[in-house]
């Protein structure tokens, strides 16, 4: 969507602060996905495709319900189905809506080299501005959840926008609007925490002792959260990371390496400059030429005695 600078609190590849006057005084937003209510109907996928005018390829069945099988430029959210058999033989079919988590500390934004291609709004939404995207894929590298995808068609990065266009005019995201079971809800992050607490209490009463909220602190919390029956084992849900953090490699790459690298280059050049000023060039003079000629004659004499 268009650049609305006053709503943007963070901007990729930008070393100075964004305008900070406008704050999220009515609270930051969050989408809560109650995995325990989700029936995997994919209505959210279809609503996403409809609202955003996306149409992926008609693919293949790969032996799973997951279709399309992966996130992509035309598929910003997909359902992931995981069959998990417990030690006692009981089975669970854990179905998770996958998509951007809208981290408070977004790895994509940190990794992005293009100024303003990735922004974070005051309400917490992390959005891609594809007109600034250069297609390098660093956002993919930076994301702890492996969410952004580079479109094969236009080489731009895409992911869930949390319907920032809808939210900006006071509507809920399309997936929330369409979810038939109420498994996806949307509101202020605070309200979503309260709603989740009720759900977790219900789940605990049904024997899910480890039910809990997935709002991982490692990325500063997320603006898309999950209610999980097994919050102690998020990996069961098609590999939801247990303690997602921005990879130390990415932190080094996009953290210390940047100023130190520039410093190193500047220092090297400056050292040369100082050397030139202080010690000066190393010139071949007449003395060297004479000595060389003498040496050459000597060598000639040795060769032809």
């Amino acid at each position: 969507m268009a650049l609305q600078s006053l709503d943007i609190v963070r901007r990729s590849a930008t070393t100075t602060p964004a305008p900070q006057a406008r704050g999220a005084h009515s609270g930051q937003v969050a989408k809560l996905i109650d995995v325990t209510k989700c029936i995997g109907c994919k209505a959210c996928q279809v609503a996403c495709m409809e609202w955003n005018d996306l149409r992926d390829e008609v693919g293949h069945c790969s032996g799973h319900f997951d279709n399309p099988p992966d996130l992509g430029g035309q598929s910003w959210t997909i359902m992931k189905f995981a069959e998990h058999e417990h030690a006692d033989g009981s089975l669970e079919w854990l179905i998770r809506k996958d998509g951007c988590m809208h981290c408070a500390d977004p790895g994509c934004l940190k990794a992005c080299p293009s100024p303003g291609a990735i922004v974070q709004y005051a309400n917490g939404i992390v959005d891609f501005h594809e007109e600034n995207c250069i297609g390098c894929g660093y956002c993919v590298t930076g994301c702890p959840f492996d969410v952004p995808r580079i479109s094969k068609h236009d080489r731009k990065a895409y992911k869930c926008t949390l319907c920032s266009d809808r939210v900006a005019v006071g509507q809920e995201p399309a997936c929330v609007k369409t979810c038939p079971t109420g498994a996806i809800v949307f509101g202020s992050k605070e309200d979503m925490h309260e709603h989740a607490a009720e759900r977790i209490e219900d789940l605990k009463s049904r024997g899910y002792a480890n039910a809990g909220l997935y709002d991982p602190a490692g990325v500063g919390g997320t603006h898309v959260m999950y209610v999980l029956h097994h919050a102690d084992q998020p990996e069961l849900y098609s590999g939801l990371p247990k303690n997602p953090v921005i990879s130390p490699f990415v932190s080094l790459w996009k953290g210390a390496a940047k100023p130190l690298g520039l410093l190193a280059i500047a220092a090297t050049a400056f050292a040369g400059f100082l050397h030139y000023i202080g010690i000066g060039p190393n010139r071949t003079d007449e003395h060297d030429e004479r000595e060389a000629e003498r040496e050459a004659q000597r060598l000639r004499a040795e060769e032809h005695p």
Partner: protein
Amino acid sequence: MTNHWVDIRNADVVLIMGGNAAEAHPCGFKWVTEAKAHNKAKLIVVDPRFNRSASVADVYAPIRTGTDIVFLGGLINDLLASDRIQREYVVNYTDLSFIVKDEFAFKDGLFSGYNADKRNYSKSSWDYALGDDGFVRTDPTLADPRCVYQLLKQHYARYTIEMVERVCGTPKDKVRQIWDLIASTATPTRAMTIMYALGWTQHSIGSQMIRTGAMVQLLLGNIGIAGGGMNALRGHSNIQGLTDLGLMSNLLPGYLTLPNEAEQDLATYLTPRTQKPLRPKQMSYWQNYPKFFVSLMKSWFGDAATAENNWAFDYLPKLDKAYDMLQAYELMHQGKMTGYICQGFNPIAAAPNKAKLVESFSKLKFLVTMDPLATETSAFWQNHGVFHDVDTANIRTEVFRLPTTCFAEEEGAVVNSSRWLQWHWKGANPPGEARSDIWIMSALYLRLKALYAKEGGAFPDPIANLSWKYVHAAEPSAEELAKEYSGRALVDLYDPKDPTRLVRKAGEQLAGFAELRDDGSTASGCWIFCGAWGPSGNLMARRDNSDPTGVGNTVNWAWSWPANRRVLYNRASCDVTGKPFDPKRTLIAWNGKAWGGADIPDYGAALDPADGAGPFIMNPEGVARFFARGAMAEGPFPEHYEPFETPLAENPLNPGQAQALNNPAARVFKDDLPSFGKVDEFPHVATTYRLTEHFHYWTKHVRLNAITQPEQFVEIGAALADELGIANGSRVRVSSKRGVIEAVAMVTKRIKALTVDGRTVHQIGVPIHWGFLGAARPGYLANTLTPFVGDGNTNTPEFKSFLVKVERA
């Protein structure tokens, strides 16, 4: 549904069996999540597959397809043995105390009166014993060995938990856990709802499965109460309207029935349908049958229906037999039916045994299809390679494809599973040359009428005299038709009790079916819809979702048949004095003078409960039936019979009884018997079903749906896949006695091998949504595999249980 979608949130226990609501009814399923989240409800799913509903269930149990009567019959046995029944309810509101005729018997797996040659029953012994007063004899102590309670107990004594495990393959501990949870709703303060769909109807004993479920609900006192009921989840958005309006070969609108061949005069027709009470003081509402019937005939034939011509009774066809779809295709196959108009229907995909269907359709002289989409039926003569390999040159059928509007391109009411008639408005203009079904049928009718006028004919009267008083004869409006089926006064109507009081002026819309008369002074095209467009206007268009009592009935939202009633049999939610069994889920109550509350009483509005009328007013006995009398084809009590293609050599409940292996009264034709496979050749049990991502054979034409589920697959349990060396995602060949399909193997832990009668039974799942046309990848029509056999009552084909052989492709 006896109840309605929103009401599911009032349940304490939700049993999904014979259906997969999360998969096939995801929008309605929200009320299950509501019940779980806000009513602490427990969800039970019993299904051959661990499906999407099971994924959010509290308890799941696997079951062998087609054995639900054993599971539920065992439950009945268990409830009776442990006396976990709502005694006050069953004693007063059911026929448990009724005495059954001495001639009635059940022996060797068959009920009395079986005729093996005709494969049907003479049902005269299947009835209550009448006393000298003409009423049924009862024993309120339930001690009489011939009372329904004792017969019921005796019948289901064979259905032990061990038998359930042996026949259904469901582990005993799971059975016990589920039965105990269900039994917890025997108290008046707890309710269970049963949600079912084609997983029960599409069996050769489907109707009896549903009945068994209903009997469980009656024992637990769960019929007529908020959060209870027997809730059939309808598949098409207006399939409820289809049956309501009588679009079955033996029905008239409002569940009136066509006369049969023996009923050649009106009196003979009306007498058995105008049911007199079987117990004292009962309402026996079908006593009003003549009012409904005469009003229907006045609606159809107007001034041509008179008392003198018996309200045009002679215009109606008299059935020599049922003309269900299986019969129709059998007749086509025999060359006896040579033309077919196929309106909103894709039988080449939707009826069983595709090979037989193609043969049948190839023998037609003409076929007309009316559909918004290019259906497989309209293209059955085209060769589509391996997916549909026909010899086009040898098919002489002339096919007319008439494109029609779809629901969003027209105005009108749609009846949902909740029996709500919800008016909707046109959202878009139809594309191209598409016309409404009304336009097409009107054109056909007007041409036929003109032809009769011009050329005459053997009996032109029904066509010539059909009342057709619409502003635009070529395309009657939805409003006109709605007003017609609702009904109006033809003359000024006066109160019969006070002849000076004018109730309705001539031409005024009627408020309800209570105003219908049998003297030709009223017209109503469908008595159960009477009042939908009442004197105050179109009640179907109401959109007030206020719910003052909190029970969720929203009686000012649209209009629910009958009489805007939201929960059927709601009188049964109160005790005999009219006090609600559970005040927290009050639907109606007796205040000393009248009934009132959150719903329209299913009872006389001012009928004093002390008068003793029962709550099941449509039954002449005033109570609900455990003993079905002659209403079912197979017998008064549901008995388990194996599917026509069964992995078992005999029916474990009736060992050694060859006649009782399969439903002895099923809809089956002799020439189809050789097309049934045996377990030695086809060792795997298959069931067909639907996926959330698709709707029947329609949405494969839609890119969005095709994206979410692009390619045909079959679900195969991990154990069977191991045994056959099938890798997930590889291709498999699935064959039945009738044909072969190939699809991607989806190897899953969600289908477990079952131990049935001492041996391992593997079940596979065949989703139905692919075909040789559409935006999704082409696939085989799943009915290539399915057997041409149907339920004995509804004639619904057995799509849910058949035998196949699975191999690596």
